[in-house]
C-alpha cells in the first residue's frame, strides 16, 4: 500500500534521511523502530507531507504522492497522528471530532447550513467516540483530559479522516502501564478492523506484540525489514541497539 523509495532529505550538510526504502503491505501493522537520532520523525514528516524530500519517491496506493501536500494525502487516505498531542484544547471532545469530520469532507465547506445540526457529522463523531473509547468524556474539555485520554482523542481525530493507512507517531509516548494497555487494545482493535497501520514507537514490548513486520531505521537508512523474529535476530539491528532493549523484550 505504501512504498518509500530511496528518500533523501538534507538539512544543510546533515542527511537526516539518507536513501531510506521500505514498504507497507495492506492490512498489516508495520512498526518503524530505530535509536534516537535515526531520523524517524523526519521520515514521518515526509511520508505525511509536512516535509518535502530532496530526492526519492513516496508511492501510496499506486499513486506517486511525493509532491503532494498534506491535505491531498489526507484526502487520499494517508493520515497521521501526532507525537505531541495536537487537539482543539478549548473545545469539547465531541466538537474536536466533529471538526475533524468536517475538515475531511470533500468540496468547499458550506457557509449556510448549521454545523451543530449536521446529523451526519455528529453521527460519525459519535461513532468515533465509541471506537476510541471516549464516549463517557464526550462533553468534557479536550484540554482537561488525562494524558492517555488525550492520546486516544488524538487517534480519534486521525481516524476521522477515514484513513486507509494510519501513520502513528509514538502513540504510547509518556503513558503509564494502564494507559499503554488501553492504547495497545485500541491498536489491536483497529488492526482487526482491517486498517493498515504504520507505527513509530520506542516501546519495544508493544512493538513486538503488535507488529506484523518491523523496519529498523539507523542513520537515515532502513537497515532491516522483516518479521519481529527476523528483526530480533538481525545482527545489525542488535548492534544498533546494543542488544539491551531487544533482550529485555524477548
Amino acid at each position, binding site marked *: 500500500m505504501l512504498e518509500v523509495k530511496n528518500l533523501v532529505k538534507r538539512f544543510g550538510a546533515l542527511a537526516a534521511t539518507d536513501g531510506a526504502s521500505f514498504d507497507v503491505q495492506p492490512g498489516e501493522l508495520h512498526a518503524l523502530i530505530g535509536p534516537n537520532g535515526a531520523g524517524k520523525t523526519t521520515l514521518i514528516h515526509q511520508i505525511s507531507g509536512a516535509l518535502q524530500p530532496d530526492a526519492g519517491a513516496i508511492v501510496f496506493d499506486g499513486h506517486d504522492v511525493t509532491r503532494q501536500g498534506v491535505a491531498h494525502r489526507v484526502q487520499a487516505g494517508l493520515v497521521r497522528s501526532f507525537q505531541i498531542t495536537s487537539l482543539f484544547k478549548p*473545545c469539547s471532545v465531541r*466538537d474536536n471530532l466533529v*471538526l475533524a469530520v468536517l475538515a475531511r469532507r470533500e468540496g*468547499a465547506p458550506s*457557509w*449556510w447550513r448549521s454545523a451543530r445540526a449536521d446529523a451526519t457529522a455528529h453521527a460519525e463523531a459519535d461513532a468515533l467516540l465509541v471506537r476510541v473509547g471516549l464516549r463517557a468524556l464526550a462533553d468534557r474539555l479536550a484540554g482537561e483530559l488525562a494524558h492517555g485520554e488525550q492520546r486516544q482523542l488524538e487517534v480519534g481525530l486521525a481516524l476521522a479522516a477515514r484513513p486507509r493507512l494510519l501513520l502513528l507517531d509514538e502513540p504510547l509516548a509518556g503513558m503509564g502501564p494502564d494507559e499503554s494497555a488501553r492504547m495497545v487494545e485500541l491498536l489491536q482493535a483497529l488492526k482487526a478492523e482491517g486498517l493498515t497501520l504504520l507505527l513509530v514507537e520506542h516501546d519495544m514490548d508493544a512493538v513486538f506484540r503488535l507488529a506484523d513486520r518491523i523496519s529498523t531505521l539507523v542513520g537515515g537508512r532502513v537497515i532491516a525489514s522483516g518479521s519481529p523474529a527476523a528483526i530480533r535476530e538481525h545482527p545489525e539491528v542488535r548492534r544498533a541497539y546494543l542488544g539491551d532493549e531487544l533482550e529485555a523484550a524477548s
Partner: protein
Amino acid sequence: MAEIRSLHHRGLGRRTWVLLAVLAALPPLLQAAGLEFYTVVATRILAFAIAASSLNLILGFGGLVSFGHAAYIGLGAYTVGVLMDAGVTSAWIAWPAAMAVSALAAAVIGAISLRTRGVYFIMITLAFAQMFYFLAVSLKAYGGDDGLPLPQRSVIGLGAELKDDATFYWVALALFATVMAGLQRLVNSPFGWLLQGARENEVRVEAAGGRVFALRWQAFVLAGALAGLSGALLANLNGLVTPHLMHWSQSGQLMVMVIIGGAGALWGGPLGAAALLLLEELLSGVTLHWQLGLGALLLLVVLYAPRGLAGLGRKARRA
C-alpha cells in the same frame, strides 16, 4: 476549571424581532425627545458595527490579527466618492462597487499576507494599509490630505431620500440586520467551525484535510467587502472622504471595538462599536482629555476582561 469554548454561537432567537423593532423605532423616539441629532450618531454606530463585525470575523473568529482593516473602509468610501465625482450617484451602483473594490483589494492583499504568520502578518497588513493611505494623500485630484467632499448623498430611488436622516438610519439598519443575520449563519456553518478550529489549532485542521489557507482567504475577502459597505455608508454620513479613514489609528480603533465588544463573540462588533462611539460622545462632552479615560478603559479591558462585553454577558448568565 477552564471554560469550554463553544463553536456554536446562539443568536437572540425570537428576541431578534423585538430588538429590531426597538431599533427601528429609534428615529421617531429621538425626534419626540428633541434629540434628533442622535439619529446621525446611531447611524454612525450602525456603520461601524458592520465594520467591526467584519474585522471580528477574521480577527475574533479567525484569529488573524489584521492591523490594516481600515484600508478596506477607506477604499469603499473613496469608491463612492470617486464615482460621485464622475457623475454616478446611484447607491445601487456605487455601494456594490464599493464592496467589489474592497473585496478585490482584500483578495490581493490576503493572498500575499496570509502566507505569513504572527507579527509578520500584523506588519504586512499594516504596511499595505499604509500604502493605500499614502496613495490617497498623494491624489491631489481627489483632495489629497483634505479629502473629497460629497455634494450629496447616494441616490436610492424608490421614493426615498437618504438626505433624510431617519431614512438613512433605516437603510443602515436594514443593511446591519442583514449582515448580522448572514454572520450568524456563517459562523455556525461548517465554514465557520473550521475557521474557528484553525484559530485554535491550524496544524490540526490542515492534518485533518482542511484547507486552511482557502478558508482564511475567503473570510478575508468577505470581511473586506463588508468593510467596503461600511465605508460607503460612512462616506455618505460624513459627506466627505479623507485619507484619515485609512489611517492606522483607525485600524487600531476597529481592533479596540472588537476587543471591547468581545472577539469571537457574535455580537462583539456591534457591542464594541456602540460602546466605543457612545463612550467618545459621553466623555468628549465631559472633558477635552477623554482619550485618557478611553485608554485607561481599554487597558482595564485587556488586562481584566479579555472576553469583552460579550464575555461579561456570558458570565452573568452562568451566575
